């Protein structure tokens, strides 16, 4: 089960690369190298994932019994709130863009760095400052508003540390905006000669779509949460009806960002999957333009579906009808991606390497997450399942089953490029399977709980819901193991892993045409691109034999 199918030759690490070109704390904290900044982000988002994970563990243990003895109601409410805030704003949103995107976008387009390297470093510092405010809120009183900060609970009634938390998220928003800006400018202006828009790896398309949402959406959430802070501190009446405000206005503003934010989390993961599948089937992706265009379609339509979170707030029936219809519209580009990925497997040369296992896991889980989204967009059905565990299960399938599977799969895929080392393949495959099983056992029962009527954010529940909750907690412990394993063996492999060589899979992207780990300036010579994306046919440099079986028709065999 070798992971290095091309040559049995023993590879050597390059003598000088971005990790060893300079030494010392200063060289990291003041670096403007996008690859080092990616690693700074990797460390910080992993930290927040850990914090959010601890909260999740406590939630699941508490829910083992109907009357939950582990923590008090106040503490329980803080746990699910802080779990959401840490995971969404400080792990999921930055994870793929700021870690993998930062590392890969310049490499994939053949650039030396991002367009604004110093701003890139500034983004990380802004993220840290925002993170510190939020940690301060967690440590001094915690936060019990739900990650959704619904008013007037958050702006008037909550006794927890809301103000530092909203300031933290406000600040953190600028980190997203600057990263998005940096990516857009970089992708527009710094592509290598021959790297046309339709030769771009689909991961870059996905980052581009995500950046649009970063730039257009994030200012809205930043200002909205600032208004919550102002109402709390100075009693200005924006959302509090007693001061003439409107609590529903908050929900419109909040979801105007926070629904597109779901696509911030899932689009980059879709980009990762679109890289992995061609590599491990050794064929061009099926329907390149459709996958690229669907990323943009999702980003654009995603801005016009926000009020589907509000069907039962008393919003007008006409608004509900419009937003339901638009929500179904956004399902179509997602479906297009799934069909194209599946078709790419047809007549491929499929290897069973870990990144592909994650990708297939992603498709399965995203499929369930996406299909159950149709249930929630359905007006008549939403009356019953809105604000129940059905919603909790649905968005975990998208965000954990989708976004996190994509992120972890991507980390494995590019780990050899990032560190120059291979991870232990057998352990990694096991972890992928454990994650998939644990995830389904954790979250599938929650769909049933939801339809039975268990509302979300309950610190205790009627006894008839216990069996399903115990199943969910059992699944969560398997899931935790599935996350711990990669953390351990990936760390281990940095020192003890086999040397990977420049292109271990092999893959077609530009990032694989430079040593692993890459030199600080990425490429010794600016590459010139004269091949299409995922073209294994015209790449003698990959050392692969051409397809066996029936002869190809000359015109790309588009049967």
């Amino acid at each position, binding site marked *: 089960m070798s992971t290095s199918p091309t040559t049995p030759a023993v590879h050597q690490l390059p003598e000088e690369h971005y990790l060893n070109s300079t030494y010392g704390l200063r060289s990291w904290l003041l670096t403007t190298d996008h690859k080092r900044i990616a690693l700074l982000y990797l460390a910080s988002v992993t930290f927040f994932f850990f914090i959010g994970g601890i909260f999740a563990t406590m939630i699941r243990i508490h829910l083992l019994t109907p009357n939950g003895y582990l923590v008090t109601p*106040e503490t329980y409410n803080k746990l699910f709130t802080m779990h959401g805030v840490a995971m969404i704003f400080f792990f999921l949103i930055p994870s793929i863009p700021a870690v993998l995107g930062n590392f890969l976008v310049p490499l994939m387009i053949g650039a030396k760095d991002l367009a604004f390297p110093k701003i890139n470093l500034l983004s990380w510092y802004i993220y840290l400052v925002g993170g510190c405010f939020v940690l301060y809120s967690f440590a001094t009183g915690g936060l019990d508003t739900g990650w*959704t900060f*619904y008013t*007037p609970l958050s702006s008037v*009634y*909550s006794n927890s540390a809301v103000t530092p938390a909203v300031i933290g998220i406000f600040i953190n928003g600028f980190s997203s905006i600057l990263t998005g800006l940096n990516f857009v400018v970089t992708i527009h202006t710094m592509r290598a000669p021959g790297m046309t828009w339709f030769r771009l790896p689909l991961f870059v398309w996905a980052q581009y779509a995500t950046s649009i949402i970063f730039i257009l959406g994030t200012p809205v959430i930043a200002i909205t949460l600032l208004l919550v802070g102002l109402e709390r501190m100075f009693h200005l009446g924006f959302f509090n*009806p007693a001061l*003439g405000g*409107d*609590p*529903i206005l908050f929900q419109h503003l909040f979801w105007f960002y926070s629904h597109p934010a779901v696509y911030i989390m899932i689009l980059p993961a879709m980009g990762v999957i679109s890289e992995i599948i061609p590599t491990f089937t*050794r*064929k*061009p992706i099926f*329907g390149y*333009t*459709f996958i690229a265009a669907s990323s943009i379609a999702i980003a654009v339509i995603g801005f016009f579906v926000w009020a589907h979170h509000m069907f*039962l707030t*008393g919003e007008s*029936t006409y608004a509900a009808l419009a937003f*339901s219809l638009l929500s*179904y519209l956004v399902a*179509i580009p997602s*479906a*297009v991606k799934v*069909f194209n990925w*599946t*078709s790419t*497997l047809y*007549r*491929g040369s*499929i290897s069973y390497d870990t990144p592909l296992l994650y990708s*297939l896991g992603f498709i399965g889980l995203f*499929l369930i997450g996406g*299909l159950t989204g*149709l249930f929630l*967009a*359905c*007006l*008549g*059905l*939403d*009356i*019953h399942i809105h*604000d129940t565990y059905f919603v909790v299960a649905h968005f975990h399938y998208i965000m954990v089953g989708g976004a996190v599977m994509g992120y972890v799969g991507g980390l494995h895929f590019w780990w050899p490029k990032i560190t120059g080392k291979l991870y232990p393949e057998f352990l990694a495959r096991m972890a992928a399977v454990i994650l998939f099983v644990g995830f389904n056992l954790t979250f599938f029962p929650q769909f049933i709980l939801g*339809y039975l*009527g268990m*509302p979300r*954010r*309950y*610190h205790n529940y*009627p006894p008839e819901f216990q069996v399903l909750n115990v199943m969910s907690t059992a699944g969560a412990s398997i899931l935790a193991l599935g996350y711990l394993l990669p953390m351990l063996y990936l760390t281990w492999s940095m020192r003890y892993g086999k040397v990977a060589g420049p292109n271990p899979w092999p893959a077609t992207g530009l990032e694989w045409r430079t040593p692993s780990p890459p030199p600080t300036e990425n490429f010794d010579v600016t590459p010139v691109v004269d091949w299409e994306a995922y073209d294994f*046919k015209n790449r003698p440099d990959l050392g*692969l034999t*051409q*397809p066996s079986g029936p002869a*190809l028709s000359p015109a*790309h*065999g588009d*049967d």
Partner: protein
Amino acid sequence: MQAQLPFYPDQASNFAPSVDALMTFLILVSLFFAVAITAAIVFFFFKYRRKSENEVGYPIHGDMRLESLWIIVPAFLSLAMFGWGAVVYVDFRHAPQDTLDIYVIGKQWMWKIQQPNGRREINELHVPIGRDVKLVMASEDVIHDFYVPAFRVKMDVVPGHYNTMWFRPTKAGTYRFFCSQYCGTNHAVMGGWVTVMDPSDYAAWLSGSSGTDSPLVAGEKLFTERACVTCHIGNGSGRAPSLNGVYGGTVRLADGSTVTADDAYIRESILVPSAKIVAGYQPLMPAFQGQLTEDQILSLTAYIKSLQSQPIPATGAGVLTTGKK
């Protein structure tokens, strides 16, 4: 489509069968796609396993016919889901005529409920089988949500707004209701029981009331106590418009526009009278924002509603067309 899957809760209202049928339809469509795609993946996964180390896949770039197919088919299925869901939702959002109106007030962390005859309940709701029931809901603090899984209905209870929802109970029994919009510390215990009774049992239960004033009577008293009656004189001779026939009717405002006199309008006109001035009148009325509890506003509204059937004076009427049925 009436099949009851094991994880469907009790069906105890008119909406339960229609929501469950919708659920069954969506489950079937989803199962079809989930099984088809999973089967394709598993089949390809084994069938096209890499046979030799250096093998390359067959370069297929795409197929226009397939792309069109999997855009058009999901689009039509989506439309079907949307349409069917919309029918159920529109029905839910539009209460029929002649409902049994019950007032519900949510506050951290309890539900105060008042029957039409004034009988009050806390965290309990009694309703008769077969009668269209409308809950008129208000909140005293944060957003709550009244959710009865066995009825398949829920609606947010929003401070500063009235939300209503209706249902027709179909099966006697006791069912849980929950607060399903997170509302702070004791959100999870802010629930109770709905008791669905035969109409005769319900009537007996109602008459066993310990006898507080009905909202209408309480509202009439308030109307005098708060001196509303000194300006809003029924024959239209007062400094403020007569309220006869106003409820449900159309009112012409000073700026020339018109507005329907529903619960929300009446509530606003009590709390912030200057927001909408009736044509021909001066903005003299004091604001009652912060002066009245949600209970009192509901009572006043109930009283004003009862004036719907009073004769409308020729002059000094606050109403353009009446909402009288």
